[in-house]
């Protein structure tokens, strides 16, 4: 393989609020103590759920990925990974107070820079932003963007407003200005029911329906004209699942043909927009069980440039080091692991070849 694998979705764990205390300013540090703030771990990943962390990736306390050393040993060395993009899933997007969200986002980003990025030159990260408020989110992007080890802006797929809505556009403008893709990750701020037909009973349902959330938010980005308005913006769907994409595009394209007069700014066929502007991380690979059908299915994807290698570490999506599903040919695997991530993340090309 030419070049080392680039893992586009790993999750460092905030070991606890005390770890962030040095990175909060006085007012917020005092708030944490005086008001007895709890951890900002959301129900998107229940701590003990098998999915939240593979058993062999948990430490003695049961937590995974709390240090850079551990992450490197678990998720970089065994895969030969040369570069890894950290997406910290701490619930800063779910606080009702926009100011609290912004303070926590600043703390998370500074903690990531000092205790992870400074620790190992292979690590990169996404900028965590308080997506409750686009103005505050843009301020955080501006604050962090000078550090080119931040290679992307991180949003959750389910926030207060559909992602295409104009209130969110300043985030896309800032990302585009700095050469940062917008990475949309599974997860929610829980402002709305976790399915479009109401609150589901089971975590299994919520997680399965994350794929539906990605579908509706991709529709929103398309229909609202985000891709037309920001011609240099790349969108990466992370931990989205991938096999829903072809069938979704067939349906969207059919309605685009019938209803495009409603959204005249969508001038290219949806599949063309996706091929040019949208990427998806590989894990969880929600494909068929047999390699022959996987091979056949990959033809439906219509392009070998869409997928980016990810382990989704420490989430339990595969056994051992089998992150690349059987049924992919070598050329496709090379593109997924190296070529596609390098093309997607402009800032990686400054240091990785």
């Amino acid at each position, binding site marked *: 393989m030419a070049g080392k694998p680039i893992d586009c979705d790993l999750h460092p764990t905030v070991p606890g609020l005390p770890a962030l205390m040095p990175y909060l300013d006085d007012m917020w540090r005092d708030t944490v103590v005086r008001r007895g703030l709890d951890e900002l771990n959301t129900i998107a990943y229940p701590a003990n759920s098998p999915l939240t962390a593979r058993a062999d990736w948990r430490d003695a306390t049961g937590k995974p990925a709390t240090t850079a050393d551990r992450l490197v040993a678990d998720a970089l060395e065994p895969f030969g990974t040369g570069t890894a993009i950290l997406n910290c899933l701490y619930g800063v997007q779910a606080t009702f107070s926009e100011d609290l969200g912004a303070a926590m986002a600043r703390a998370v980003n500074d903690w990531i820079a000092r205790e992870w990025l400074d620790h190992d030159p292979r690590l990169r990260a996404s900028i965590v932003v308080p997506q409750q408020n686009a103005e505050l989110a843009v301020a955080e992007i501006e604050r962090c963007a000078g550090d080119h080890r931040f290679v992307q802006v991180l949003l959750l*797929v389910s926030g207060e407003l559909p992602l295409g809505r104009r209130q969110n556009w300043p985030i896309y403008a800032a990302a585009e200005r700095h050469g940062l893709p917008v990475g949309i990750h599974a997860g929610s701020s829980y402002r709305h029911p976790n399915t479009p037909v109401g609150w589901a*009973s089971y975590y299994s349902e919520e997680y399965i329906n994350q794929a539906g959330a990605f*579908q509706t938010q991709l*529709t929103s980005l398309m229909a609202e004209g985000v891709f037309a308005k920001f011609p240099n913006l790349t969108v990466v769907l992370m931990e989205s699942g991938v096999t829903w994409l*072809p069938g979704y595009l067939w349906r969207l394209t059919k309605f685009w043909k019938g209803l495009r007069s409603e959204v005249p700014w969508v001038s290219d066929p949806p599949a063309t927009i996706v091929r040019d502007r949208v990427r998806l991380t590989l894990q969880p690979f929600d494909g068929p069980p047999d390699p022959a059908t996987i091979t056949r299915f990959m033809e439906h994807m219509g392009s070998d440039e869409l997928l980016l290698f990810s382990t989704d570490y420490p989430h339990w999506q595969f056994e051992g080091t089998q992150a690349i599903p059987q049924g992919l040919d070598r050329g496709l695997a090379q593109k997924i692991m190296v070529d596609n991530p390098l093309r997607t993340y402009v800032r990686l090309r400054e240091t990785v070849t």
Partner: protein
Amino acid sequence: MNVDVLNRSGLQAPAQSKLAIADCDVHPRPAGAGIGGVSRSLYPYLSKRWQEHVETIGVRYRQPWERGSAYPKGQPQACRRDAWPNGENPGSDLAFMAEQHLDPNNVALGILNPLTSGQGAQDGDLSAALTHATNEWQVAEWTSRDSRLKASVVVPFEDGPTSAKMIEARAGDKNFAQVLLLTRTAEPLGQRRYWPIYQAAAEANLAVGIHAFGYGGSALTSGGWPSYYIEEMVGHAQCQQAVLTSLIFEGVFERFPTLKVVLVEAGFAWAPAHAWRMDRQFAKLRKEVPHLKRLPSEYMRSNVWFTTQPVEEPEPREHLADAIEWMGWDRVLFATDYPHWDFDDPAHALPIRMSETQKRGIFLENAKAVYGLA
């Protein structure tokens, strides 16, 4: 404004040369201007108490508008411009429907799915009165006059026990072939408040059709309300995915193993990928749902069917045959959605290579099996 279309009467091919088909999604609609959101045609089937209610308050759904839908349609009533019988509501005139659709397309079996029936009305008793009236109207004006047509028992689904009684009242009545629900309900449809419906349907040996749309009140995406009609239309698939997941993971098919569910007008090409996804997550999270004894995909392949319209149109078209292969050729039921704008013409809607058996299955035999019609 919409433009009028050419008068194409007399241009249809003769029915005798075509394969007889089942159309599993036909929309009849009461004629006549409404009052309070209820057509005059339903009045004979409403008691004085409910007529007065309608005249005083009208039907209120979990959406803003007194009349019309949350998202403006692409054209009036989302209907074909050539489907308005003398200016009356599309789908309101049996003779017109027969001449325009049932006869030329050789429809041997048409499943009626009335959508303006009071399902999802905020007042549960009003919903019960209107759905009852709609059932009476379907028999009086449609199934008793054309033996090709079968009615759906429309029920006030937010009230499980009342719905169950209405289903029991139609058990064995050959006018009815299924129970009709909508996807967008107050809670996901697998939840226990809806189980009396499934029990009654299973006991009456009636399939349960779950049609796109509804007024559940939840945002159309888990990230809020989108802006455009195209988003609502595409989004019916994600709603139906959540419905299917709910039915399976709540254990509806464990509790009612003979229950037959037909997912209507939300596409089907998503089903194989959704099944793979459900199975992969179930493998890790099964301790949460020990009441499931089989893989999620196995319930889908034994208890769930999908109607075709609006059929997905991949390039190349043969990819659609792959999708059907992965879900099972016996799972797919042809539907046109007459008289709506996105009507699928049986002559053109499935341009894929099919064996004679596969073709007969999708266009007729699968429906006869699901609906128990020899």
